[in-house]
């Protein structure tokens, strides 16, 4: 009887969604991509992923201890950051560089700004951009050798040799071409996207608009459907649009804000790819739009019912 009349303060109903459950969903959604990456690029990609995840979690642990903050490694966000960072790196990267990138992503990008939810930019993206700037060509799309089950030869990424030797559509779909560990297999990334949509972890706005606008702009510039398709399916566009541009803390919260964010990302990506010095611009595009996110949120704020315009 006493137990049935137990009274507590509100809220009386709890959703079962926690940070941990969301992060677990993201990890599950990244699983096909990870497996595909290991199959395509071989065992060494496992080492890259292990170092990245390991150092992310370790630096989060050490930083929380030193800063005397509540321990946050059990929410799995550091695992997601480490996994995403590893998936955007080439397989032949030096492992100590991966470790420094992971430490930078967690300590500088996330820890210094107040931990999970307080960071102004996506830690994985910023970690990758840091490595791009810090180690020069190492991260950028040069030639990667695949030593996995699928036999790939050393070559530049499809984006770098788009003009001379276009990669076939099937290769682009299955990911049997050069590139970063997690960005090559489009089918696996789409599987993850569908899983996240079903679990309602993300909405469709950002990824769909991002990829569609990149396709349309490329079509407009090159006036060739095949090239535009190849451009949209290669490089880091899919992993960036699905997993990076949908991060909660660093992207707009309202649907129209997400659309503006995605269009901005797409425009910057195409500008860098077509007219910039770099072959790929997705990570820079998302980072730049991360910085604009607070303003976009301000512009697209919902008007409360009966409130002033």
């Amino acid at each position, binding site marked *: 009887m006493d137990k049935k009349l137990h009274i507590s303060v509100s809220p009386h109903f709890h959703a079962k969604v926690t940070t941990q459950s969301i992060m677990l969903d993201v990890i599950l959604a990244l699983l096909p991509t990870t497996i595909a990456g290991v199959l395509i690029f071989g065992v060494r990609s496992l080492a890259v992923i292990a170092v990245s995840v390991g150092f992310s979690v370790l630096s989060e642990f050490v930083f929380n201890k030193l800063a005397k903050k509540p321990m946050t490694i059990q929410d799995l966000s550091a695992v997601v950051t480490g996994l995403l960072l590893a998936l955007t790196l080439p397989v032949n990267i030096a492992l100590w560089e991966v470790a*420094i990138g992971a430490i930078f992503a967690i300590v500088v990008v996330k820890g210094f700004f107040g931990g999970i939810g307080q960071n102004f930019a996506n830690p994985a993206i910023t970690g990758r951009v*840091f490595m791009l700037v*810090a*180690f*020069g060509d190492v991260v950028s799309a040069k030639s990667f050798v695949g030593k996995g089950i699928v036999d790939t030869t050393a070559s530049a990424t499809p984006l770098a040799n788009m003009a001379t030797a276009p990669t076939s559509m099937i290769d682009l779909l299955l990911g049997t071409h050069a590139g970063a560990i997690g960005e090559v297999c489009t089918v696996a990334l789409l599987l993850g996207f569908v899983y996240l949509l079903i679990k309602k972890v993300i909405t469709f706005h950002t990824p769909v608009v991002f990829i569609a606008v990149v396709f349309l702009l490329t079509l407009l510039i090159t006036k060739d459907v095949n090239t535009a398709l190849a451009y949209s399916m290669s490089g880091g566009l899919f992993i960036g649009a699905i997993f990076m541009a949908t991060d909660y803390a660093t992207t707009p919260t309202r649907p129209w804000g997400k659309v503006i964010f995605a269009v901005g990302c797409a425009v910057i990506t195409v500008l860098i790819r077509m007219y910039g010095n770099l072959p790929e611009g997705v990570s820079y595009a998302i980072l730049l739009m991360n910085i604009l996110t607070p303003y976009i949120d301000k512009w697209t704020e919902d008007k409360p019912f009966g409130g002033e315009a």
Partner: protein
Amino acid sequence: MEKKNKLSVLTSGFIKENPVFVLVLGTCPTIATTKGVISAISMGLAATAVLICSNLVISLLRKLIPDKVRIPSYIVVIAGFVTMVQMLMHAYLPDLYSLLGIYLPLITVNCIILGRAEMFASKNGPVESLLDGIGMGLGFTFALLCMAVIREVFGAGAFAGIEIPFLVDHCVPFLVKSSGGFMVFGLLIAIVTAISTKRGKKAPELGCSGCPAAKFCKAAAGDDVECVNATAKTEGGNN
């Protein structure tokens, strides 16, 4: 007492009032010349020489310079010494002269030198100003050296141009770039602030002794009334 004061004038430039890490002056040469240890030390010493001389001269002239034209007068004195240092370096240390390049004449507009002229030399006697110049100059050199060691050792894998065996293959070139310089700068400021606040200043304690209204509050004096600060907003004060 007199002697202790002069000593503290000399030493305050090092950590407590370090021109770079605490006063945050002279950021431009700090970022630009700390790519290597050699350029950092020579920049620091050149600026120190100018700072000592200009502090001394400005302190001696402080009663002659009219208040309205003091800044141009300071700049003339400083620029004179910078030109002297520049010519001497050009004649006797041509390698260093070309290494420092534009940053040597730019010492003229270095905030530390003008800042010390305005904040210290124009208000204190020549001996104190001389000591202040030495302390601040050495503090500046020390700060540049700290940054340069971090940036060169971890960014280029070398110390003063000599390669370090293991690090040269495992360096982070980002640190040598300007953006990396800003990051090292920020981290060092954080560390210095952490050290200096831990040692000296403590956060004002809660309670009546730390309360800004303690002077005119009866509760702080021990009377049995409620605290002014807590009730002031809700009741408009008791009086």
